[in-house]
Structures are given as structure tokens and as C-alpha cells.
């Protein structure tokens, strides 16, 4: 498994290197095209009017993107610029790699679970101190097979020899005289080579066998007893408690990280356009709502793409390592988190854009961003707690219908299976309606604030303007 991780990291690094090299080559090709164009156009340069003739310098990929954006009018052109610039940025590339690595590790590490072999089968070196009857050895092997462990026995010359081998991890555990198990450290520790399930099962089976022998059962009777199967346990209703849902916790963290990251991009992007005065040139050509819409759409598409890549990558890795996140209701929880990421972004992006239009400097951005992040933090912290406990309080269920906290709370209710489809739909509709209202309000603030210079703008000033 370590090899898989190393290969994965190397592959990501290789992809980055190749993409950077291709980008450099494209730039060199563009430069070459420019030089060629200059040479071709130099003959008539003296009489050239910029409107009539001259060299044509084109960047094919950017033109394709521009043409694609043009189909959606000015908003599309603005959105395409945002997409191109964001995806080109080092922050996005490095950030994506880090997120993918984090997600990959979050899925792979729980599945490593002390395994050292391939194909999901773990090798367990078991030392035998003293004697161990074939019957007991068979029990250990069968217990190992049931736990996907390939058991190898090693006969130890002495107890000290066994201790030595246990300390240097060449033995998973040792069976001492058939009546005790010896481990270097608790099997549950991550550094222990022993499979804790196998250790526990072997200990229980040996105890049972000793009891059966003591009770005077024949080998046939023992086999009959040990092959006994549990009767089915049927439930009239689902239990109130559920074990910690690791997938949902990771999903919730990703939801928080991505939502915060992309909304902050909008905040800073709007502020930078304002502080660099480029907004004046832009608004001389397009309406404020077009500029804002293009920015929100462009960054939103980048965000959605990254989220889809992360989820897709998570599912691929999960399938590769046989993770639990593909089992039960967890894919539904992942899908719900993706849906709520889109809805959460749609709701918050307008608010952050309006805030960005009121700032002119980086320190003002931080001041404005903090109050906006409070509902996100509340939703996130509550949700992490509820996902871990599996119990949703009435307050938490109310939060699932409030647009600022719904992205986290409703995703959590889906993850712990405590919401009906119509409740989910109701929350979606409430959030969509609120988003429309917030967008109209934010667009008004943006239009009034983005051209005001000379310090941070306050809402009171806008009301009076």
C-alpha cells in the first residue's frame, strides 16, 4: 500500500511538471508567432493603421476559451477570464494537489490497518513458543482466513527469542505454550504489525477450546459447537446511535474548506478590481450586474469542477483500496455534500462579493470576512459534532432549514440518515429563494460601493447615497 501512495504522489508531481512544461512551450510558441508576425508586418509598418492591417498574434487555447465564453455574452467573457486566470494560478494547482492528497490519505490510511501485503490480504507472522497442537494451529489459520490474514507460523527456540522477534516487529504475536498470547504492544496501536481482530479472535477461540476440552467434549462435538451460527437479529426501527461516520466528517471538512476558499476568492477578487481601479475600465463597458455575475459564475464553475474532481478522486481511491465509503448510505451523503456545496456557494458568493466591493485594502478584507464566516463556522462545528455523535438535536434540525447553515446541517442529516426526501427538498427550496433575495440585495450594494474610493465603505453611506 505504501508503494501505491508513493506512486500516487509521484504521478501528481509528474502531472504538474508536464503541465508546466506544456504551458512554457505554449508561451514560447506564442512568442515565436509574435516575432514571425512582426517580421511579416514590418514591410508595411510605416503606413500601417491599427485599424487596417498588421500582424495577427493569437493564442489558440485562449481563443477557444474566449469563443466558448462569448456564447454567454459579456457575462460569459468575464466568467471565462476568471476561469482561465484562476486555473492558471499556482494557488489553485497547488491547492488542488494538497486537497487530493489529503482526501486520498484520509481514505487510504484507515484502510491500511496494519496490512502489509497486496490484494487486501495481510501476512501475520505468528511465533510458537513451546508446543501447539495441529488442532489449535488450524484454528489460528482459519481465524486468519476469516480476517483476510495469511498466517505463517515460526517456531521460537525460547521465550526470550520470541520477545526479541516481537520487539523488532518480525512477529505479529506469539502463542506461548498454547495458553497465552504475547504482543510487543497493543494490537490497536498503529505501529503494531498484529491484526487486532485476529488477536482478539484467536484469544477467544483458544479460551473456548480450552473450556470445551475441560467440559469433556469430543472433537466432533467441539466442531459442532464451533460451527454454530447466530440466529438472525431483526429490528423494528433504526437505532438512534450510529458509529462515527468518517466519510461525512471528511466531506464536512472539505465543504468548509472549499466554501471558505472560493468565497474568499470572490471577496479578494472584487476588492483587487476595485483597488486597482480596473473596475472603472470594466464598468465603462459593461453593467455592474454583468461584471459581478461573470465573476461569480466563473469562480463558481472552477469551484464546482474542483469539488467534482475531489469527489471523483475520492470514489476512485475508495474503490481501489476497498474503502467503506462506497458502502451503505455513504455515497448518498457524498452526493448531498456536493449538492450543498453548490447551494452554499450560490448563497454566500453574493454576500462575499458585496463585502469585497466595500473594501479597498487587504486589512479591510479581513475585517469584513470575519463576521461573514461566523455562520459558516457555526454550521461546520455543529455538524462535525453531530456527525460524530449520530444524534441531531431540534436546534440542529432547525439550522438545516436556515440558508446560512443549511449546507452543513442538511448534509449532516443526510449522512446520519435522519431526514426525509421532502425535508431535504424543502431546505433546498428555502435556500434557493433566500439566494435570489441575497443576490438582488448584494448586487445593489456592489453597484453602489464598487466605484466609491477613499477608504472602506459602510452600509450607512450606501443608504444615504
Amino acid at each position: 500500500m505504501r508503494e501505491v501512495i508513493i506512486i500516487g504522489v509521484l504521478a501528481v508531481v509528474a502531472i504538474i511538471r508536464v503541465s508546466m512544461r506544456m504551458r512554457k512551450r505554449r508561451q514560447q510558441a506564442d512568442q515565436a508567432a509574435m516575432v514571425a508576425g512582426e517580421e511579416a508586418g514590418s514591410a508595411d509598418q510605416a503606413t500601417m493603421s491599427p485599424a487596417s492591417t498588421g500582424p495577427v498574434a493569437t493564442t489558440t487555447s485562449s481563443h477557444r476559451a474566449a469563443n466558448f465564453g462569448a456564447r454567454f455574452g459579456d457575462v460569459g467573457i468575464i466568467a471565462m477570464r476568471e476561469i482561465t486566470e484562476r486555473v492558471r494560478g499556482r494557488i489553485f494547482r497547488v491547492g488542488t494537489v494538497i486537497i487530493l492528497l489529503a482526501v486520498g490519505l484520509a481514505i487510504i490510511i484507515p484502510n491500511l490497518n496494519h496490512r502489509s501485503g497486496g490484494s487486501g490480504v495481510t501476512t501475520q507472522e505468528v511465533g510458537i513458543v513451546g508446543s501447539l497442537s495441529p488442532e489449535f494451529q488450524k484454528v489460528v489459520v482459519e481465524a486468519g482466513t476469516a480476517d483476510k490474514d495469511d498466517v505463517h507460523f515460526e517456531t521460537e527456540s525460547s521465550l526470550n527469542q520470541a520477545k526479541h522477534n516481537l520487539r523488532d516487529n518480525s512477529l505479529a504475536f506469539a502463542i506461548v505454550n498454547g495458553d497465552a498470547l504475547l504482543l510487543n504492544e497493543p494490537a490497536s496501536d498503529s505501529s503494531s504489525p498484529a491484526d487486532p481482530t485476529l488477536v482478539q479472535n484467536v484469544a477467544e477461540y483458544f479460551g473456548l477450546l480450552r473450556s470445551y476440552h475441560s467440559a469433556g467434549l469430543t472433537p466432533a462435538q467441539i466442531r459442532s459447537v464451533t460451527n454454530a451460527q447466530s440466529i438472525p437479529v431483526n429490528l423494528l426501527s433504526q437505532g438512534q446511535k450510529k458509529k462515527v461516520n468518517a466519510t461525512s466528517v471528511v466531506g464536512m471538512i472539505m465543504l468548509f474548506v472549499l466554501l471558505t476558499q472560493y468565497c474568499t476568492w470572490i471577496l479578494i477578487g472584487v476588492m483587487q478590481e476595485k483597488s486597482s481601479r480596473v473596475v472603472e475600465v470594466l464598468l465603462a463597458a459593461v453593467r455592474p450586474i454583468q461584471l459581478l455575475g461573470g465573476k461569480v459564475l466563473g469562480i463558481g464553475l472552477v469551484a464546482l469542477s474542483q469539488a467534482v474532481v475531489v469527489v471523483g478522486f475520492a470514489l476512485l481511491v475508495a474503490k481501489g483500496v476497498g474503502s467503506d465509503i462506497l458502502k451503505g448510505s455513504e455515497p448518498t451523503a457524498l452526493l448531498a455534500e456536493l449538492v450543498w456545496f453548490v447551494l452554499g456557494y450560490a448563497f454566500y458568493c453574493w454576500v462575499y462579493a458585496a463585502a469585497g466591493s466595500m473594501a479597498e485594502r487587504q486589512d479591510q478584507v479581513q475585517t469584513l470576512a470575519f463576521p461573514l464566516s461566523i455562520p459558516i463556522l457555526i454550521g461546520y462545528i455543529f455538524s462535525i459534532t453531530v456527525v460524530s455523535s449520530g444524534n441531531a438535536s431540534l436546534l440542529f434540525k432547525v439550522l438545516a432549514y436556515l440558508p446560512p447553515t443549511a449546507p452543513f446541517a442538511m448534509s449532516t442529516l443526510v449522512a446520519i440518515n435522519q431526514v426525509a426526501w421532502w425535508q431535504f427538498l424543502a431546505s433546498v427550496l428555502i435556500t434557493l429563494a433566500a439566494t435570489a433575495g441575497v443576490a438582488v440585495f448584494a448586487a445593489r450594494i456592489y453597484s453602489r460601493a464598487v466605484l466609491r474610493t477613499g477608504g472602506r465603505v459602510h452600509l450607512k453611506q450606501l443608504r444615504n447615497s
Partner: protein
Amino acid sequence: MGAVLELRGLSRRYGDIVALDDLSLKVPSGQVTGFLGPNGAGKTTTMRAIFGLTDLDGGSVHWNGKPVDQKTRRRFGYMPEERGLYPGMHVGEQIEYFGRLHGMSSHDAAKSTGQWLERLEIANRWNDKVEVLSHGNQQRVQLAAALVHQPELIILDEPLSGLDPVGIDAIGKVLVDQAHAGCCVIFSSHQLDQVEELCEQVIIVDHGHLVVTGTVDELATSGPRRLVVRVEGDRDGAWARSLSGVTVSEKRGSEIRLVLDDDTDSDLVLTAAMAAGKVTEFSFGRRRLSEVFRESLA
């Protein structure tokens, strides 16, 4: 006659500050017009009002007799006083982008961008980020962004500030060429010598209203007689200040410019100058734009 920009009674207040006070003026196409005034006179507010970048308390902007709307503004070009560019975006892509936002196709925007970058002698900076360029080259990129879509009206707020003489000549020539091609070119500047050299018409505003407007020739030949006198070794022009009917207009080194009252005899001035030292220049001169500016605002 070409298109005309007309401002009708523009008014704008910021609290107690009057930025525009019933400002009305007309600017014809086909010439370069200097838009002058002291700091805080309302020049930038006027320019922003033309592009709808500031709300007006009153008045309207007309182009070719029709009120200016968003569609019309897409045929205008604007170069703000402070840099209006994305610092981290590549030069070529940035100019193309502005062309696209003014309604050009991707191909036309790229073609025009290449032509303007070549014309402004920065074609080799296509793939450079704006932030790595010198001030002068950033100014050229800003100009290219304002011109890429072949606007009918170009408004430039302090396009010459911070430029070296070579940069001023390059940008100045572009503006004159655009005007001769039928464009309406308006720019503000505090470099009055350059304005005098480039512009055919001048508008001077102060406290948000029009003070003076006319061609450079009209303004230069209007007003009282002016003498240009150079006395060797004279550094302060004290000899002229004591003469009655004579006002010192400007002093640059040993050159002094004097405004004569109608009944003042220039021979008396020459006599006084010769008494002060060796006279190396004594001639009647045109009114400089800087003198027009100062006298208009006095």
C-alpha cells in the same frame, strides 16, 4: 461635421462639496481637446460621468445629439488616471479581453491587440504580466486597452503623467493620429506645455463649472500684449516689477514674460531692461497656455 460630445448642465455634489456645478460644454470630433483645471476642479468627475461611473444629481451626456446609454459607451474608450489593469494578467490577453468586452469578436480583438502593441512598440511584451512592466510601458498597455476597439470617443485622465519625453511623444502622436482619423479625443493633464503642443482646443474648468474654452490659437492671441525679455545675469526680474502698467506673468531662468497694459509704451520697458543689464532677447510673444490657465483661474 463629425460627432459631438455634449454635456448639458451636469451637477454632482458629494455632501457639502460641489464637484460639478451645472457644467455644459461641447467637444467636436476630429481634434484633440485638452481638459484642464486645478486639482479638485471636477475633471475626473466629469470624465466618470460620461461613462456612467458616477451618479449625477442633474444634467445629461449626449453623443451625436442622443443621450449616451450603455450601448453607446461600448464605442467609447476610457483611460483612468490611476492604472486600470489586472496586474497579474498577461499584456496581450488583457488587451484582447477589453476588446471583447467592447463587443469585438475574439479574432478581431486579437488582431487589433497585435497591431496596437506593435504600434506602441511593446509587441515583445505580449506574454508578460503587466506588473513586471515599467511605468511607461504600463501606460502604453493602458492606452492600447482604451484604443483596441477603435472607439469613436477617447477620454484619457492624465495619460502623460510620469512619462519620460520619449513616452510623451509616442502617446501624444497616437492621440493626434486618432483625432486626425476622425476620433474625438479628450485628455486631462497638468503638463500644459504638452497640452499646448498636442491640442487644438482647450477647456478649462474650476469648481465644477466651465471657465474658458476655445482653440489654442484663439486663446494664445487673445488678451493684452506680452513681451518676452531676457536680460543677461538677471535672476529675479526685479527691474520689471517696479514698472507701472507692466505685470510679470512668468519667469523662467533669465527669461521674463511681461503683460503690458494698453497704454504702456514698450520702449520704456526696453529702456528699463537695458538699465538692468545686457538685453539678449526682447520680443512680443503669444500667450502661453500656462498663462491662459493662470489668468483664467485668477
